[in-house]
């Protein structure tokens, strides 16, 4: 695996700088998060929710925000027409690594914002295992980013990019989401964090499997 760290980090920095300059994704994503949490709050209308339902809502908001943001890195290159330029600049694996890094950063920020907003707005959403909770959110975010990065590269080459993205992502993400929800429930309502070990193992192995496969398959997606 000709994974060069330098090109990847250069691409990552370029994407961060480009994002900070144009703010296409950031602004839209923030608004998306605010809107979807508002919808949740409207529908709750002051009632106290069961923790299970709150956790479900949290993961729904995390999933759909990821769906509106994760495809951006590749779709933007495709729309700008810079895909070929990138192909001439670096090897496919370093392109994938750079894009993955960017998506990881994006989703960590995104999830942090979502969770903080949830904690602020949801009454009686007490977490019994905060350490485990944040670990699960972090791992869940990494898992979502790792699976959606290669799917974003796939849909960037197709028509109907926006609608296709969640359709392709959901079945692949389902094992991760189920393990993530289960571990989050343990973190919120459980008495020991050991109960979440199998779920954490699953999250980690999912991430490793998906990233490794993506590295192997990315050449085929990337080259026309």
């Amino acid at each position: 695996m000709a994974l060069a760290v330098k090109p990847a980090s250069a691409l990552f920095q370029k994407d961060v700088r480009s994002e900070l300059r144009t703010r296409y994704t950031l602004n839209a994503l923030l608004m998306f998060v605010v809107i979807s949490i508002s919808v949740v709050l409207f529908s709750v209308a002051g009632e106290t929710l069961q923790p299970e339902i709150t956790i479900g809502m949290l993961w729904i908001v995390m999933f759909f925000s990821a769906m509106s943001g994760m495809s951006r890195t590749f779709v933007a290159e495709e729309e700008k027409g810079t895909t070929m330029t990138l192909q001439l600049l670096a090897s496919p694996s370093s392109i994938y690594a750079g894009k993955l890094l960017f998506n990881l950063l994006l989703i960590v920020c995104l999830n942090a914002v979502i969770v903080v907003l949830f904690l602020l707005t949801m009454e009686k959403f007490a977490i019994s295992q905060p350490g485990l909770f944040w670990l699960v959110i972090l791992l869940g975010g990494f898992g979502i980013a790792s699976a959606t990065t290669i799917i974003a590269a796939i849909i960037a080459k197709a028509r109907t990019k926006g609608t296709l993205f969640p359709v392709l992502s959901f079945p692949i993400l389902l094992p991760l989401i189920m393990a993530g929800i289960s571990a989050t429930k343990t973190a919120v309502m459980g008495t020991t964090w050991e109960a979440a070990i199998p779920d954490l193992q699953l999250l980690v192995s999912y991430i490793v499997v998906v990233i490794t496969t993506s590295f192997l398959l990315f050449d085929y997606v990337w080259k026309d």
Partner: protein
Amino acid sequence: MKSKYIIGGIIVVLFLGIGGYSFVNSSVEYASLSKAEESGKKVQVTGTWVKNKGSQYDPKANTFIFHMKDEDGKIARVVLEGAKPNNFDISTSVVAKGKYDNGTFHASEVLTKCPSKYEGKAEEHPEGLDPKSEQAEM
């Protein structure tokens, strides 16, 4: 180039194994009573009906109450909001969906599992239905 796929393949298989193994201990949907208590989540507990403690249906409250023993041998009182489930008497195991709270399992649904043995002769009687153990109890 080829070694890339071999190494990648080994990593994928290895971690698929780890992920699969972690499912052994996982409690994605089904759990034991003690795990239900630990996690505080709404879970599905698989167990058997403790026949000698009987079962009763309260038509006024529309609740069906019985005792169940989970796989670890822990016994809990189960209160089901609803009527007696189908095939309850002959079931080999039951699955109760609900929450565990202070020694009582509040079930929203109880599903019964009947012997799925596709073998010729029912050699083993379902638990509690063996004529010999029945006589011993009497």
